[in-house]
């Protein structure tokens, strides 16, 4: 086992990784930007070194500085967390060149899965389902129309060189195909100078379901079951759960087997996630593989009882996984809610400021992963996620009830958070019935304002707050009265003075 690990990350994930190290009796090294100098997670490590700078490029992406601190601190391994350098295969290779262990997969596996086109090829060879489609290169219009009919409508025509939705056409029926094809080709030619198109099966009801993988360096690859992460805003997950309320056992087995096959195809070690699009009726297709620890890993930890972060470290230290697939079970149900400093009623605009009050829920079935506390500042420099709240229950209903209670016992003041939004989702009937597609928020929460109709409780609370805290701390201002003239005595207001 390593003696000392440097965590090349910040916030809640740094804090969580320090905890994983502490559980293995490994010393920890924090690195921090100027903006994070006062952050509580920095003080959770055994050693802490400043990176300087505030932007990601100046700090958490600054490989030169990070390797300097590795040398200075004597750390033997680097855990990259998620984001920042975690999926940078060049960084992983640089670590190897400096004899520092990168806690994650091999640079080669990262490279292979890092390119979507490459991953698609490997998947196809490994028998992992990919989105059905046909390449239009060298095919006549009639041949493409035939292929589209074979795929089954609706289909999506998109520019091979595409991006940004240009040259994309959704075609609902064969009658529209020829016109749509011409339009897509024209648009592709005008936008990219190339009328090469791809015709793909188009899906309307999509679930994002992903499989957690754990592989060691001795050839064993296991899956830790699936997570459903369909509740997304701006293509970012905000609520995740395990098991998925959507897929059945047979699909689960097939999907998990596919994920293992893909990981095995690239000799994957460490933790990774294979993301699928589930389109109903037992059909699923590969989206991509994330070659890192995922934000939502705690729900898998809750249902499997495994500490994924610790296993990443143990695997990197050369340990073999001591259990087999049949030893693993998915017990009960876990849900994660991501608490963001953002205004869900204002297009999820990040909310910046000082956290005047932070109070997290407690209880035997609640886990809170966070890197902030009362007095912390939410800055514009980094992701405004404040915490992940994870609840576990014997079944989905119990996990949901525990989450509603946990969110109600979470008080964050000073910035606007998405807590009321999360609470409303948790209590919405379609969500409660497990009808969670990637379109769920657009379908059920467009135009959400979060306004509450004040009731008796609100009025009383408001009156109580104003009566107790309404005036600047409740301290009366000291005055002297001279005749009818109240003369202010500045010396008695010393607390409001400031140096200039």
């Amino acid at each position, binding site marked *: 086992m390593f003696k000392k690990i440097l965590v090349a990350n910040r916030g809640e994930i740094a804090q969580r990784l320090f905890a994983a190290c502490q559980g293995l009796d490994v010393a920890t090294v924090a690195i921090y930007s100027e903006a994070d100098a006062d952050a509580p997670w920095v003080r959770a490590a055994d050693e802490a070194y400043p990176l300087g700078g505030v932007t990601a490029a100046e700090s958490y992406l600054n490989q030169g500085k990070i390797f300097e601190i590795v040398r200075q601190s004597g750390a033997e391994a680097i855990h990259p967390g998620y984001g920042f350098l975690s999926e940078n295969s060049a960084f992983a290779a640089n670590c190897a060149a400096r004899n520092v262990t990168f806690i994650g997969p091999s640079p080669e596996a990262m490279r292979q899965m890092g390119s979507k086109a490459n991953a698609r090829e490997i998947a196809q060879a490994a028998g992992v389902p990919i989105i059905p489609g046909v390449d239009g290169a060298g095919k006549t219009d009639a041949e493409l129309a035939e292929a589209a009919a074979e795929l089954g409508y609706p289909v999506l025509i998109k520019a091979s060189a595409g991006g940004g939705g240009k040259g994309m056409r959704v075609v609902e029926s064969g009658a529209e195909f020829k016109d749509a094809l011409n339009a897509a080709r024209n648009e592709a030619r005008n936008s990219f100078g190339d009328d090469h198109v791809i015709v793909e099966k188009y899906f309307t009801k999509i679930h994002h379901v992903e499989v957690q993988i754990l592989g060691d360096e001795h050839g064993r690859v296991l899956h830790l079951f699936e997570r459903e992460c369909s509740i997304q805003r701006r293509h970012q997950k905000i609520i995740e759960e395990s098991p998925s309320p959507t897929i059945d056992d047979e699909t689960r087995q097939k999907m998990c087997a596919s994920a293992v096959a893909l990981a095995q195809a690239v000799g994957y070690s460490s933790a990774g996630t294979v993301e699928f699009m589930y389109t109903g009726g037992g059909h699923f297709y590969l989206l991509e593989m994330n070659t890192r620890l995922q934000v939502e890993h705690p729900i898998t930890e809750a249902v499997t009882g495994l500490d994924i972060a610790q296993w990443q470290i143990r695997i990197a230290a050369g340990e073999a996984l001591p259990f087999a697939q049949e030893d693993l079970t998915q017990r009960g149900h876990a849900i994660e809610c991501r608490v963001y400093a953002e205004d869900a009623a204002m297009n999820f605009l990040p909310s910046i400021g000082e956290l*005047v*009050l932070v*109070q997290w829920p407690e209880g035997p079935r609640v886990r809170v992963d966070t890197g902030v506390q009362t007095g912390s500042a939410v800055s514009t420099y980094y992701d405004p996620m404040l915490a992940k709240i994870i609840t576990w229950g014997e079944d989905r209903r119990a996990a949901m009830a525990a989450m509603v209670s946990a*969110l*109600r*016992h979470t*008080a964050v*003041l*000073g910035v*606007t*958070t998405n*807590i*009321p939004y999360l*609470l409303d989702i948790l209590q919405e009937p379609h969500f409660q019935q497990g009808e969670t597609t990637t379109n769920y928020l657009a379908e059920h929460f467009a135009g959400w304002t*979060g*306004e*509450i*109709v*004040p009731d*008796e*409780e*609100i*009025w*009383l*609370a*408001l*009156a*109580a*707050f*104003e*009566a*107790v*805290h*309404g*005036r*600047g701390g409740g*301290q*009366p*201002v000291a*005055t002297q009265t001279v005749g*009818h*003239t*109240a*003369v*202010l*005595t*500045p*010396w008695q*207001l010393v607390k*409001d*003075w*400031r*140096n*200039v």
Partner: protein
Amino acid sequence: MKLKIKLNNTEHELHVTRTGEQIKVVRDGRETVLTVREVGENSVTVEYGGQLLRLAGAKKGDKRQMWVNGRYVNYERVQKRAGANTAVAGSLSATIPAVVSAILVSVGDEVSAGDKLILLESMKMVIPIQAPEDGVVTAVKCAVGDSVQPGVPLVLVEGVN
């Protein structure tokens, strides 16, 4: 005290009187008495009829963000308009020589006890002149940049009691 609140763009009025641990709230002619059980830096727990009401709030000027038993409410405290019954007239002055660095109010402004009216600068310090009580500014007798001597009235506030 009369409490005016702006919530969801509508103004509401309550009467709130605190006597020791008791807070009397009157709204729409209905009276409720709350008992203060716990007071934190930003929080309060009150009890009424056996119910515990936990709340916490953050203030930014007159704007409030409040957490009430798991719900969040944003509102604004509307400072009351001065009534006709002015009891005490007061003028405020500096007690040490200083230079006026900012005037934060103008004639006709309603102010609350503790509101900063004028900022004075002296000895590398900023010293605020604050309203001793709720009232209306009736005169401003200085300008930014003026050197002022102790005891010379700078601003007049007619109080409401």
